[in-house]
Each structure stands twice: as C-alpha cells, then as structure tokens.
C-alpha cells in the first residue's frame, strides 16, 4: 500500500500576535512547526504501515525551502519518502491553487497512492479546504473529519466524527481522508529516524517537474484574496444591574427588551 500524507509548515500559533496597526500576523521570531492536525494524519499513516507490511508512506508539502524542516520531522517519525514542492510559481497560492499544485505532484507519484491523508485543517488558515480540494482534482472519494480507519480487502472502513456522534462509512480505495486530532496521539521522532533525517538531501520539486499548468498556479491564479486580517473586537460590557430584588431586576429587563422591540 502507498500512503501519501500532505502536510503544511505553520507558525506556532501559541506564539503568534497580530500587529494592531497593520492587522497582519507578526511572524518575526515565531517558530515554525508541523501543522498539529497533519501530525495526526501522519500518525494514522505510520500506524497503518505498522499494521500492513510493505506499506510505503510518502509525505508531501508545498512551501518555501525552509518547509523542508517539516519533511525532516516526518522522516524522523518514520516516513519513507518525502517531496518538497518548491517553486516561485506556487507563491501566493490560495486553497484552490494549492489543491491543484498538490494534486499534480500526487499524480506523478509511483506507485499511485491508495490513500491520501490530510490533517483536518491548518492552524494558520483554518480553511479545511485543501484536503477535499486535492481529492476533487484527483477524482477521489473524500471523507473529511475521520477519526478511525481500517483497511481490508481493498476497502477502507472509516469513522467520521460529528459533534453529536459518528458515521461509519465504507469506501473503495484509493480515497482521501482529512484526519481529526481524536484519531491518535502522534509519536515522537526516533533516534534512528532523526539520524536519517539529518542525512536527507532534499531536492525541491518544481512546477515544471510535475507538469503543473502555470495558469493554475500562484497568486494570479487564485480566485480568493485576503483583504484584511484583524482581531475581532473584544466584547463590550453591556449593561449590568445588581444589588436589587430579583423581581425588580426582572421587570427592568423585560421593560428594556420591550423598549427595543425584542419581545
């Protein structure tokens, strides 16, 4: 079985602040990490590898040269192969263009993957669109918000979580999943894995190498634009009454609601 895990390098959001003047993220000095939900996707792949002999796990990311760090982290944990899609042509891609770019890289992979895994969403953009987007470009069935997978007889049985329960779905392979935090506890890198990662000589894969259509790449090909990023204004205090009889307060509240034509 060949499993492809798509991952993203993200700023560690616990350290990110928004510049109140410009309304942009202050990324200076902020550590970059492997997107936490992608860790769960990778862990799901590695557990399947332990269960099904002969499984190969390939980890794919698109980003600047320094995104190689998350691929090294993946190798440290047990990924067999990695691809770094890195080209100026990809710069500024939104979720649509990113999905397209990733799909072109996956199409080129040998053997063709049986399973393509994504984290539920990235913690910087929070769109949750790239996973299903890639599945669409590849024409694969996609199950989002997966918490469990079992593979048998060329089929996958997947549990998809909802707020109040879960669905158990069966799908043919190949398929794509986006994986929840609840799925597992991601392992830490092993010593031998870290040593292998140190020796890794990563060659970036260009847009041309994956036969990506330049008209579908980068900022210009992206149908969405980020107009503004801002912190939502803090909630204002409202009106507070206290210290009087409950009946008096209730009457006052009812009067106010009536005055504003809310009741």
């Amino acid at each position: 079985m060949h499993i492809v895990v798509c991952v993203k390098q993200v700023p560690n959001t616990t350290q990110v602040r928004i510049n109140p003047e410009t309304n942009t993220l202050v990324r200076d000095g902020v550590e970059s990490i492997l997107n936490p939900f992608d860790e769960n996707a990778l862990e799901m792949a590695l557990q399947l590898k332990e269960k099904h002999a002969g499984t190969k796990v390939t980890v794919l990311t698109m980003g600047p040269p320094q995104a190689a760090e998350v691929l090294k982290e993946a190798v440290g944990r047990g990924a067999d192969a990695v691809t770094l899609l890195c080209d100026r042509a990809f710069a500024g891609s939104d979720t649509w263009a990113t999905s397209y770019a990733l799909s072109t890289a996956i199409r080129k992979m040998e053997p063709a993957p049986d399973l393509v895994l994504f984290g539920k969403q990235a913690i910087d953009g929070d769109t949750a669109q790239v996973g299903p987007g890639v599945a669409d470009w590849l024409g694969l069935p996609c199950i989002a918000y997966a918490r469990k997978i079992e593979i048998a007889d060329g089929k996958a049985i997947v549990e998809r979580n909802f707020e109040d329960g879960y669905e158990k779905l069966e799908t043919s392979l190949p398929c794509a999943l986006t994986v929840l935090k609840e799925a597992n506890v991601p392992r830490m890198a092993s010593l031998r894995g870290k040593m292998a990662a140190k020796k890794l000589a990563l060659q970036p894969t260009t847009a041309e190498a994956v036969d990506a259509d330049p008209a579908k790449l980068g900022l210009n090909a992206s149908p969405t634009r980020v107009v503004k990023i801002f912190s939502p204004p803090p909630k204002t205090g409202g009106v507070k009454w206290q210290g009087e009889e409950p009946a008096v307060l209730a009457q006052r509240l009812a009067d106010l609601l009536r005055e504003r034509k809310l009741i």
Partner: protein
Amino acid sequence: MAELNYGLSELALEIRGMVREFAEARVKPVRAELDETGHFPTEILRELGKMDLMGLYIPTEYGGTFEGDSMPNLIAVEELSRICIGVSVSFAANGLGADPILLGASDEQKKKFLPPLASGEKWAAYALTEPNAGSDAGSIRTTAVKKGDKYVLNGTKQWITNGGEADIYTVFAVTDKNRGARGVSCFIVEKGTPGFSFGKKENKLGIRASATRELIFEDCEVPAANLIGREGTGFIWAMKTFDVSRPGIAAQAVGLAQGALDEAVAYAKVREQFGKPIIANQGLSWMLADMATKVETARALTYAVVQSIDRGVKDYSKFSAMCKVYASDVAMQVTTDAVQVFGGYGYMKEYPVEKMMRDAKILQIYEGTNQIQRDIIGLALNKEYGAAAKK
C-alpha cells in the same frame, strides 16, 4: 538557561533534547497519577523503545547505538529523572539487568539476549538482593545446583526493580557453599521458566511507579548455557556491574535535584508575601543559590567520572562510589529544601516537590547504601596510600 560546556557529543546533545521533550510531554502529565496508583509505566517504556532510546548503552553490533560514549544513556536517565525517578529507574534498571551480560557474557549469549533489550521489545532486571543479604551481598543463599546440562535454582530474591515486568533476569546464586563470595555464579533466567514466579509488589515510600517484587525460584531449571562466565565468577560481575551502574544513580540524583530546583525557583519568583516575590528575600535566594551550586557540582562530578571511564581510566570503583554518594546526598538536601521553599504548599500533593522529596530517599539506599559507598572510598584510600607508603 546558562549552562556549562561539558564537551558533550552531538549524539548526547540530541538525546538530551529528545528525552527532555519526551519527559515533558509524556511523563510530566502522568507522574502524579503513577505515584498515586503505583502503576508501572508500561506505555512510557514502550514508547522509549520505539524511539530507539532503550539501547543507548548496548553496542551497535548487538542492536543498540553505543559506540564508546556512555553520556547519551546517562543523560537520558538524568532527563527522565528531572521529571520522575519512578519512571527513570524503570528505564535504567534495564541497563543494570543487562550489565552482567555486557561485562561477562559470551558473544553467543550477547547475540541472543541483547538485541531484544536494545529494541525495547524485552526488558531486563538485576537480581542480587535477598532478605538476609543486602549490604552484605556475599551472603546470598539462593542456590544453583548443576544437573546435566541444567542448573536447578532454589531461593528468593527481594526488592527486585522491574521484577515481574522484565523478561530477562540476571540472577546471582551460590554454586559452591564452601567458597563464600567466590562460590557465587550469575545466570540469565527468562520469565516463564518453570519454577520461576513472583511475589507481591511492594508498597513504597517513593519511586512508586517502579515495580519492586520478590523473585521466587522453586526447582527452577535454567540451561547451563545461561551461566555467565565460569562458575564462581558471579560476585565479580555483581561488583563490576555496580562500578558502572552507580554513576547512573548519580545521574538520577542530578536530574531529580535539577527538577526540584526548577520547581523551587519558578515558585519563588511568583509567590508573593509581604508585597514582594519571596525570591527577593536574601535568606531564600541564598538557599536557592546553594541548591543550584550543589546540583551543578554533583553533575560535574558525575559527568567527569563517566567521561573518565570512557577514556579508559581503570580504577574507577572509588570514583563511581563518590559520584553516587555525593549526588544522592545532594538530591536529598535539594528536594528537602525545595519543599521548604514551597512552604505549606510544598507539603501538599497538588505540587510535585513532596513526591520528589519522597523519591530522593531511595537514592541514598539502593545500589549500595551511602554508608557502603563510603566504605568503598575508604578502602580505596587505605589501599592507595598504603601502596604509596611502600614506594
């Protein structure tokens, strides 16, 4: 944080980072619960095995990663100890159990028993102590009688760390009653061998996550091929093991004391009384200064001993005893002072320092009480200065 440069290898630094992160993420959240329930940290050891950290002391030809540098394993013990020595002793006891094999076993025995220990698939334990043979280890009564190509073991071992949890035991037994310590032999006994069973798990003051059990041998037949070295060499392996394992206890002590210092300083900075943080009181800051100085001194001595052993210093028995006795006394003092810094809160189980203080006590007792360590140092001095006088 400012730190001294001990000339650690790249591997040792890598291990320090890995184990520090692991201990924070996996051990810290559960240490209070493990202490309360006395549950053995099975999952934690399994994960350390998967991370290739169980074979740091085992040579590469037997599946480990050891290539002459003992610091990576020592630092792994130190970093686990910073968070919980109940966990770190369960980790380190594997090395203790394996030491007689590393020191005295044949290549064939090493090839059979070391690789599963290196991978973490199996765990080891060291079985010397008996109800009537503690400090006087030469007076053990467990017997091994040769019968064809087997030895038949009878007797009871007491307070065996990882007892019941480990798969491979290095067991010391008397093969010749008339020869005293020279009649002791060491055997590799596998869990599941008929006639080999376990007594109850001890209920302890500290290191409660660790498993301490009796081992019971009743006509237990062990293949003669599992004898380490020759008959009568057991006591040598037992003592040589302690010479290399005692710095591991010192590393536990350094880690534990560092953990207590970390807690104490952090608390002293945020706890306010009389309108200021208590660290602003000279009496308290001097106490912290003494604690920090002791921790670093203990670390420096321990590292120096291990690095000297690696560099081929031969007579290191005295130095092993010194780092064990010094660092464990420091751990007891520093953890006690950490409770004092916390005041009433320190006495409560909501904070980790009371556990650290309870845990520290064992370091002055096991692998030779601190009185035995001083005996070893004293004997060495007597011998060394005697030799010098003759010259």
